[in-house]
């Protein structure tokens, strides 16, 4: 994968470069602000951009705005924004234009290297990676229909909304992929969602439902 990094904290930036290089990815550019990020993405056309939300000059939502710009101007590039905080408002802004090739994670998640690189790969492949916190907030809002789900089905739904594949869900819940498929079918039937082929489209359907 070819990756561009935008992160203003030098230590974090160096760490990310090392981590990604270690996993065999190519870091085309590592920049400290949103402006430079847009230039780097235009120049290198990476598979994924990893973007910190709070960057100079205002240290508020530069990364988020840059991410939305990248999606508009470079649809081939996936964007993973990450931050020290999960702000539901930012998640909503990010998902307004759809969840494909998008990710929003807490910075903490980078520490679980396998999960993080897995999320990057999903985004590059057109999928989604949402932090469990974001999903938790989506599921918390009282939605008619959700109370029809069993506890296990809600767990599966949450993991689906995070963007995980059947195999990922199975590993996470320590159940077989077969039972995951069964649960997924049950959820789609109960929520009256059209059955979707492929993990990515399935995620989008779930997110569209949760955000409706």
């Amino acid at each position: 994968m070819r990756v561009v990094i935008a992160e203003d904290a030098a230590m974090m930036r160096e760490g990310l470069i090392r981590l990604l290089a270690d996993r065999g990815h190519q870091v085309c550019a590592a920049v400290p602000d949103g402006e430079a990020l847009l230039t780097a993405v235009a120049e290198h056309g990476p598979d994924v951009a990893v973007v910190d939300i709070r960057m100079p000059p205002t240290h508020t939502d530069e990364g988020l705005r840059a991410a939305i710009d990248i999606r508009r101007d470079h649809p081939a590039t996936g964007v993973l924004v990450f931050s020290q905080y999960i702000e539901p408002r930012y998640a909503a802004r990010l998902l307004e234009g759809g969840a494909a090739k998008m990710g929003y994670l807490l910075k903490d998640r980078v520490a679980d290297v396998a999960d993080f690189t897995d999320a990057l790969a999903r985004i590059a492949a057109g999928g989604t990676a949402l932090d469990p916190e974001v999903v938790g907030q989506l599921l918390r809002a009282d939605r008619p229909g959700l109370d029809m789900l069993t506890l296990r089905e809600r767990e599966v739904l949450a993991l689906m909304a995070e963007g995980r594949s059947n195999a990922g869900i199975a590993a996470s819940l320590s159940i077989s992929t077969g039972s995951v498929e069964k649960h997924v079918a049950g959820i789609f039937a109960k929520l009256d969602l059209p059955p979707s082929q492929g993990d990515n489209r399935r995620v989008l359907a779930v997110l569209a439902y949760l955000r409706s």
Partner: protein
Amino acid sequence: MSAMATVGRTLTAFATAPFTRRARAELVYLVIVAPIGIAVPVGALAFLMIMGFLAPGPAKPENVSFGGLAAGALVLLVLAPRLARRLGSFQRRLAARLLGERVAEPPSFRTGRGVLGRLDARLRDGAGWRAVAYLLLRVPVAVLGLYAVEYWVTGLVNLSYPFWWGLFRNHQPDVHLSPVPFLTPLKSSPFHIATYPGTLLVFAAGAASLLVAPWVTRAVVLADRWLIRNLLGPGSLTQRVRDLEQTRAQAVDDSAALLRRLERDLHDGAQARLAALAMNLGLAKEKLGDEGPELAQIRELVDAAHQGAKDALGELRDLAKGIHPPILDTGLPDALASLALGSAIPVQVTAEVPRRPTPAIETIAYFCAAELLANAVKHSHATTITIHVAEPSGWLLLIVTDDGVGGADPARGTGLSGLAHRVGTVDGHLDIASPPGGPTRVSIRLPPHA
């Protein structure tokens, strides 16, 4: 008998007045301050003149540069309050030392942020401008002070006449010398004397003016003391309240700015380091793999360190968010929307805030909304909550309503009374309408700035 004694005491007091410590102190005071009092307006005028005639060419009225004059006046305007404060504090100390007139210090000057803020703070420095008023009103008092000093000087000079008359006027009887003028503080020498007995008259006049001198001095000093008390002290109650309000606003703003900086320092410092540390530990953990019995122990240790770093990150995040929620930097509507999206009960947010209040006010509004939301979720059993923020007539209005069971009482529990306290720090208002059975409506009004 006692009347006689009173008269006697009064006469004695009158006769010894010139020799008292108090008279001496007051005289010294006038001698020191009169030149300063006159020098201040003269200095200011001279400065303006120099600025006015800075343009090349002879200093004729038609060559006066109005730009220079205006620049000079501006400089004076900006510098005057600070300079006046300094002179005023010198004056206060002198009055305390020599006159025993102890006046409390005015509130100290609080500077603003940025060039414009500093300029604004200077121009609105109430105590500074009162000190300027003192210096201006003191000019006539200083002139009167010189006049009072003149009583002493002429008194002493006149007393000396009989003593030097014999030395300088021991001429032959047929030589005619012009008469010698004798001084009076009233007008320039209307009286002249030509003979030795005349000097006794001058002596008497000198004694009289010395007897009067301490009272003239005292009158002038009293006027000055009155000015000092009223203009160099902390000021009237109204003024004092205004000063306190200003100081409080500054304190509220300062603390908001401090908390914001603290959060940013945490974010850029400790949080970033910890995230990088956790990332490196995560990488190390993966590198260790699962094989080798001696690696198992190391793996366990790295595992623990990794988990510890992640836990610390979480705790630090909660702490930093409690200090200052970073999303507030993008504005109150965004922050409230974020709050609403994270709520377990659906929340409708409407926000119309065309003009942003100061950060301190936004922070108070945000934490109030967060607290009210948490209260509603915990106690109200509501199905919907609404948050409405608007800015009618310049004040920020925050209304949080829920369709729950009501019965919210600030007397019970610390949450609502804590809010009232928080709102009170900026003279805001908190109204709670929560009849048993609901609905609950809490409205908070906050000024646009602290």
